């Protein structure tokens, strides 16, 4: 199995010649077009409001996509491809098997673990059926499913943050010397435990207040209300997505720096702490920049403002922009071998970051253009309460990751030659 952070398939097949570089770019573009086509097809079948299954309600579809991403990250980063990596299978078969397992896991987690399990015996809001059984205002299937899906999306978000920070920060430590099975189970238990704690602190108060009357004995009044001008957990979601963006940029784009030096000097634990704190600082700084930019474009938001004027939207939108950056970074890595491979690390990182930001800006303009209305069936305009770009962004990311992590980047890998030393 290929892991994205361990190798570096470049756009160049065999050398620095211009023709080879152009060939690499052409293959990358073809690969990107294929991935975009698959994403659109899946979007149309599963999510598009006038498509086949029309799951984009929006939260139900969001929960399926977010859970799929969480499963992919779990299989590739926490489980490290185990046990599939040990099976002597050709890449197309292994990829197909892993994809099927991931899709089955999504169904099992959403409809089994959350709807049928946790929601019925532990926390009501994880299951629409349990919510309806309890009754009360608005307790019918559509509302109940949206509430349960919101809770699941938030749990997925907490899991993704912890899994990615753990994976990028401490990696296999402290189980790096034990058999892979033991390591996977140990990492899983730790990451799930920490995810649960993060979910409780960052999102549970929001979900507890999705009801009337608010379930204030189960969840506190959102503690971030005065801090952020909103009671919505979009505040936490936006912050965490910006932090994840910083983790991804460091790991993928900046070749593990600057946190990698702490591993060499102080061990994995030191790297883990610095990855967390450093990514938090970068993520908050990015959020601050976006906040100022949005103020310049749309005036300052205010308490009780909606749409563009809503603080909750500004945080969510920061997370949406971070999502565009993350997707752009993965596309550069998977489709174009991470861009430039020569020059100093600082120069490579700078050029790659510039390319990624340009890609993110292009995605932003596409998503809010009439083109997206044609392709995705969304209403033109920004800040619709029934729409978030995160769903299509994460779906695209899932498709990219499935190719990279499950299919070993094939068939693109077969068309290029990986260049060592990157």
């Amino acid at each position, binding site marked *: 199995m290929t892991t994205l952070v361990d190798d570096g398939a470049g756009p160049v097949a065999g050398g620095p010649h211009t023709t080879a570089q152009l060939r690499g770019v052409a293959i990358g573009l073809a690969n990107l077009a294929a991935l975009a086509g698959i994403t659109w097809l899946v979007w149309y079948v599963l999510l*598009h*409001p*006038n*498509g086949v299954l*029309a799951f*984009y*309600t*929006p939260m139900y579809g969001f929960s399926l996509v977010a859970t799929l991403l969480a499963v992919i990250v779990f299989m590739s980063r926490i489980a490290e491809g185990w046990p599939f990596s040990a099976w002597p299978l050709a890449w197309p078969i292994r990829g197909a098997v892993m994809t099927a397992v991931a899709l089955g896991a999504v169904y099992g987690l959403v409809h089994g673990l959350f709807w049928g399990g946790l929601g019925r015996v532990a926390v009501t809001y994880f299951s629409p059926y349990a919510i309806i059984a309890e009754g009360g*205002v*608005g307790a*019918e299937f*559509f*509302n109940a499913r949206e509430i349960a899906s919101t809770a699941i999306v938030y749990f997925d978000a907490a899991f993704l943050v912890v899994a990615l920070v753990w994976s990028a920060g401490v990696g296999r430590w402290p189980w790096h010397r034990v058999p892979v099975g033991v390591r996977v189970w140990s990492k899983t238990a730790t990451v799930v435990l920490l995810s649960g704690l993060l979910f409780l602190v960052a999102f549970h108060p929001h979900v507890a*207040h*999705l*009801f*009337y009357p608010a379930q204030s004995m189960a969840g506190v009044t*959102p503690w971030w209300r*005065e*801090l*952020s*001008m*909103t*009671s*919505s*957990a979009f505040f936490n979601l936006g912050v965490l997505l910006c932090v994840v963006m910083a983790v991804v940029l460091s790991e993928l784009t900046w070749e593990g720096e600057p946190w990698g030096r702490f591993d060499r000097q102080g061990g994995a634990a030191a790297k883990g702490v610095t990855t967390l704190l450093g990514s938090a*600082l970068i993520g*908050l*700084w990015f*959020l*601050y*920049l976006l*906040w*100022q930019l949005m*103020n*310049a*474009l*749309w*005036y*300052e938001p*205010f*308490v*009780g*403002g*909606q*749409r*563009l*004027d*809503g*603080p*909750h939207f500004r945080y969510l939108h920061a997370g949406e922009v971070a999502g565009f950056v993350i997707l752009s970074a993965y596309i550069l890595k998977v489709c174009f071998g991470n861009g430039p491979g020569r020059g100093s690390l600082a120069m490579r990182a700078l050029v790659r970051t510039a390319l990624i930001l340009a890609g993110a800006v292009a995605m932003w303009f596409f998503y809010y253009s009439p083109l997206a209305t044609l392709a995705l069936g*969304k*209403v*033109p*305009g*920004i*800040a*619709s309460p*029934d*729409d978030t770009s995160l769903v299509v962004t994460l779906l695209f990311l899932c498709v990219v990751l499935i190719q990279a992590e499950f299919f070993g980047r094939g068939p693109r890998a077969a068309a290029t030659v990986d260049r060592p030393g990157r």
Partner: protein
Amino acid sequence: MLRRDFVKTLSGAGAAAVGASLAGPAEAQWIKRRPKVEIGEVARVRVDVLTETSWFDNTRLKQNIVAYGGAGTNQYSIPWDWDNAGGYSALITVTTLEGETRKILLDTGWNTEWMDYIYRRNGVDRMLAEGEIDFLVISHWHLDHAWGLASALKHNPDIKIIAPGTLYPEDRTLLGGGRLTARSHDGDDVVICQNDHPHTGPLVLTEEAGENDSGIYRPMPGMAIRLFDVPILLRVRGENVLYFNVKDHGIVTVTGCCHPGLLNLFAYARRNFEDARPYGCYGGLHLTVFESWDPRFDDIIRGIEYFGIEKIACNHCTGWLFAEKAAAAGLPIVRGTDAFRDYPKVSTVAGSSNVFLTNGDAVTFG
């Protein structure tokens, strides 16, 4: 910690100072700033609730939406339950500073049978026929606000209409006279709306730029109409909002669904109108429309307190839940009466607390 402190904390966190220098000051010059406009004053505004029950059973409406693609689907692709359809329409009576009265019809509802009954019951059919109503405003092109056009146009097809310019071809078909169908899952083509009385009068299709790039339209002194070009569920775009500046009181907003957001409307008035002071509002506020809560609605209750709105007359898509919670929080909700119980159909979510201004009620500002 307050928000400004939080922002300061962020700015103190390492490179935030660099960010500030890159991003520029919070009140940067990127926003298109227009000079503030003087919209004049009116003496009084009365709103009669002709009908605010756009549908009678929330669950059936939701089933229609979910079965055909959810909130993002095209409203013209759903074979709606005709029996569940009602409509939204209000009669606005403005008293000018000179003591004259002007009448405006806001929206034309959905089910033409229901709307015929409503207009007959309230004498609006006669007012239309005799030219007593100055003009008709379509707030937005949602089915429950515009598909009942025939019920108004049959009495006066020449009436001046002010409607959002963000309309789709189907909306134009309806306006010009026509019939539209949607295909059910059974393969049947179901007639979902029909207008046999083409509009032949003046038509003003509003744009966000407004008249002379002022951002607004001013059909009479003391009144302004602004199109907020926002994305709305069921593929609709843009909503016309009516502003009145009531002498000695302040700004009143009258809305169909208030999709742009209530406080956003007052924020716009503060930024763009001379001496704009929030006073009151009437209409749907599009909050707990399907009886589901969200923490950001708590923010709106807090925000209304900060804005100091004195009179909140709400109904329709506001959601009883929000109105009840807002009233419990001490906001100045205008109470309705039991007049709605005298109508042949009543909403299944109608509460007993009268926090809605509903069918047969009225409110006066000023």
